[in-house]
């Protein structure tokens, strides 16, 4: 569904962030992109929706080639790709609802959006999404009044209201505590499953990635050095991605998760609403 062909990004400073990336993401696949800081993960994700202009190569979303689109067509193409950000990137002085509705900007005209007159269907959808992420009581709170986990939920709702085919997720948990991180990752993956969305998730935390995704791609210095299932990440693979280090702790953690579900999972299953409550309090 999404295909990258020989994607290259060279910054004006001469740094080569991406050196010919070939990647294909089928519909409905949730994929984690791991790699050290500076490997080009953020650049890769931003080259897909051209927040960063790729230097050469092609990006294909379905049949449409994104790299050659003009401004208007690019805007329409961006509607099909929801993006979730590291520091949430909510517009802090707008309310939760306005932030969610800003995901609809690609669909409504300027004056309608300026007067905040969104179509009723969008408003219904916004309420539904806020309920789904557990924030239906915070509709008119200002975004800067929310906690980190709550903000990221708003960010997720904003991406989903675009009715995208793929989610581009940039370090969704980097500014969150470990528990909230898991909740957010789980929420993203559940939503992808419900809606049959594909996703590319940039993530630092290898263990967390392994818990939730179907496929892991390792990036190092702008090149793909690993592409396979999460349990294929051996010490050698990690060394190739990140460099020499004692990986036994990371790997053991993974094996623990596999043999027995983590305690957190246990207690949540009888209480599916706990996450939402945690989000509200």
């Amino acid at each position, binding site marked *: 569904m999404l295909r990258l062909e020989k994607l290259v990004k060279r910054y004006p400073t001469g740094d080569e962030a991406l050196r010919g990336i070939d990647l294909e993401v089928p519909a409905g696949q949730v994929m984690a992109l791991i790699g050290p800081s500076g490997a080009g993960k953020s650049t890769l994700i931003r080259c897909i*929706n051209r*927040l960063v202009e790729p230097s050469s190569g092609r990006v294909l979303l379905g049949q449409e080639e994104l790299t050659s689109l003009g401004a208007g067509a690019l*805007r*329409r*193409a*961006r*509607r099909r*790709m929801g*993006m979730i*950000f*590291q*520091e949430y*990137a*909510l*517009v*802090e*002085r*707008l309310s939760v609802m*306005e932030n969610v509705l*800003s*995901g*609809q*900007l*690609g*669909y409504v005209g*300027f004056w309608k*959006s*300026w007067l905040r007159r969104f179509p009723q269907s969008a408003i219904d959808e916004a309420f539904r999404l806020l309920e789904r992420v557990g924030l239906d009581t915070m509709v008119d709170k200002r975004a800067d009044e929310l906690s980190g986990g709550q903000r990221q939920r708003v*960010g997720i709702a*904003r991406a989903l209201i*675009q009715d995208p085919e793929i989610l*581009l997720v940039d370090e969704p948990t980097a500014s969150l505590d470990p528990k909230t991180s898991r909740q957010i990752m789980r929420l993203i993956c559940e939503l992808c499953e419900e809606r049959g969305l594909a996703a590319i998730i940039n993530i630092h935390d290898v263990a967390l990635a392994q818990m939730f995704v179907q496929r892991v791609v390792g990036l190092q210095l702008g090149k793909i050095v690993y592409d396979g299932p999460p349990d294929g990440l051996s010490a050698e693979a990690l060394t190739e991605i990140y460099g020499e280090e004692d990986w036994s702790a990371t790997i053991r953690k993974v094996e623990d998760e596999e043999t027995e579900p983590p305690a957190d999972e246990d207690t949540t299953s009888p209480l599916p609403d706990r996450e939402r409550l945690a989000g509200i309090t």
Partner: protein
Amino acid sequence: MSVAHSPGIRRWKRPPLIKSARLRWAIGLGAAIYLSFAIGSIEVNWLRVYEGLDRGWAFVIAFTEPDFVKRWRDISHGLIESLTMTVTSTVLGILLSIPIGLGAARNLAPLPVYLFCRGVIAISRTFQEIIIAIFFVAMFGFGPLAGLLTLSLATIGFLAKLLAEDIEDIDPGQAEAVRATGARWLQWINYGIQPQVMPRLIGLSLYRIDINFRESAVVGIVGAGGIGATLNTAFDRYEFDTAAAIIIIIIAIVMFAEYSSGLIRARLK
């Protein structure tokens, strides 16, 4: 280090601001020479000053009994002109500052637009309002229109510059997120940038009302309308009681404007 070792006693002296002693002395000496030259270049006619003291005292006394009545027609006419100039020039200035401010922000505008807008700002900031007023009076004739345009231009220099600087240090993440939704340029400005700069823009605009009123009191000196002309005449005729009345009115209006804009700004956090 400033801890010097001499046998027995350890002395401590505060380390000087400028490390090099030679530079320190050079700066001090330079400042002293400059000051003596500068002060020497002022020729004070002490006799004239002495004579003037009486007049100065008369002026101070005038504040205890300002005369609002004698020239009230002139005062009220000038005052209304000043106030209308303040309102119109602030509104016009803000309306023009917004596009120019957007154009002068390096993270929004392409280079040619940026340079043009920065050029407008630089010109309006370099020349004092009075100089611009002189030219506008020559172009548009005497009267408040010249003053209005002068103050609008000055407002642009102030507001557009600060707005552009504000836009340049917004949080780019928030703006990027709005762009990623497929928003148009104007929607991007409205959702991604406006909320971030709005409180300060409103604060600065309120502050500018206050400045424009104060400035409207001087452009009259060169014929561009407002209370300045009345004030100038009052000084020329040594009518200190009328001058005192005008100055008291100006101070009162500025105080009022400052107080109310303070209230609005406090509500706007």
